[in-house]
């Protein structure tokens, strides 16, 4: 029986809205799956597409980006620029063959703790169904690990 797949979902959030919303979900003791790994930014406007690609290169099965609703950005306009940036970037990723179901965008405010927990539940469920991100994983070079044992040959015994 295969072990249940626990996806790695990297979540880029803005400090003022979604992070606070996640905090509210926590303080309200709402339950949601533990598979999201959150990275906090001052604003979604700071999130670089480089970071999304880096997340996939590090083995993420999905990436989720969430910030303030338009009009509510703590820095007034950051999320407007982010919105345009994602609108184009996601189409480029789709064009090179990345399944866009693995890339999610939401606006979640500081008051929307319930929404936060619900989105996590739904998104983790979807990614479990989709399975590990095999196509991207196939191009990630293996990381070197500890050497388990040294092979003993006839020559090595002779040297001592």
């Amino acid at each position, binding site marked *: 029986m295969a072990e249940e797949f626990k996806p790695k979902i990297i979540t880029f959030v803005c400090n003022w809205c979604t992070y606070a919303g996640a905090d509210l979900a926590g303080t309200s003791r709402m339950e949601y799956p533990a598979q999201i790994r959150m990275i906090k930014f001052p604003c979604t406007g700071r999130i670089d597409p480089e970071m999304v*690609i880096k997340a996939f290169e590090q083995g993420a099965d999905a990436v989720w980006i969430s910030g303030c609703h*338009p009009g509510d950005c703590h820095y007034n306009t950051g999320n407007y620029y982010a919105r*345009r940036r994602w609108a*184009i970037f996601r189409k480029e990723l789709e064009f*090179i*063959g990345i399944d866009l179901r693995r890339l999610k965008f939401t606006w979640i405010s500081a008051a929307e703790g319930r929404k936060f927990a619900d989105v996590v539940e739904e998104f983790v469920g979807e990614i479990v169904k989709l399975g590990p991100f095999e196509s991207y994983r196939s191009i990630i070079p293996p990381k070197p690990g500890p050497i388990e044992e040294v092979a003993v040959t006839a020559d090595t015994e002779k040297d001592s």
Partner: protein
Amino acid sequence: MIEELRKKAGELLSSGEVNVVLGYGEGPSNGRVTAVAITDAADVDKLVFDERCDNNLALYLKKPEIVSLGKIAIVAKAADSRAINVLLLENQLIRENIIILGVTLDESESWRKKNTPPIHDHLFGKDGVTGEWEEVDFQKTEELEGMSDSERWAFWQKHFERCIKCYACRQVCPICTCTQCITDKNQPQWIDTSTHEMGNLHWNVTRAFHLAGRCVQCGECTRACPMEIPLELLNLKIAKEIKEQFDFTVGMNAEDAPPLATYKEDDDQSFIG
């Protein structure tokens, strides 16, 4: 038309209005053309303009060796002229130091040589030719768009696998002007620089995205790639999205704000939950 161009070039040099005229001349071999930088008015007969003149001379406008020569007149076809607009918009060029000699080639099939350059100081050729800046080229991405995700992934992997990270695409692009390219940054290293397919995908996707709303589709990157990777398809796809979503055609003037450096409050957000 070529005679008038040569005459004007000669006048600009003899009067001292410019120090150098940058254009196309006969190449050293194979009947090809090469870029020529003419400083002596007696040499202006070297200038040619015909179907062979694909390369984007706007690339030279930022080269220190050219800038140090002083005021420059540049022979610019439609594609090059759009690149000049982008560079002016981004404050990469000093307008007063450049005289733009616009040229058109009526018999050309490509807008790159046929259309009237959107920015020029003198025009040698037809004015008012504005047909199809992008629409015909946008059709090139339709085959890929009709494929499934895994088919597209396989297509691009087959190409990205062969990328040798020579960066010819970056070096030949007139719009790639960053003094420190993101791929050269190693503290931290964002893009793996080896010729492994992971870093190759990263590099090509990033370069295309950094050109979003800036690439003028001159085609130089595709021509320069020694591994024959169809880079133009990536840039065309992004340009198509920019056009469809923000109704913006790059390089038509040097005033309109770049599409990713501006926003509308009611921009589409149907992809956001």
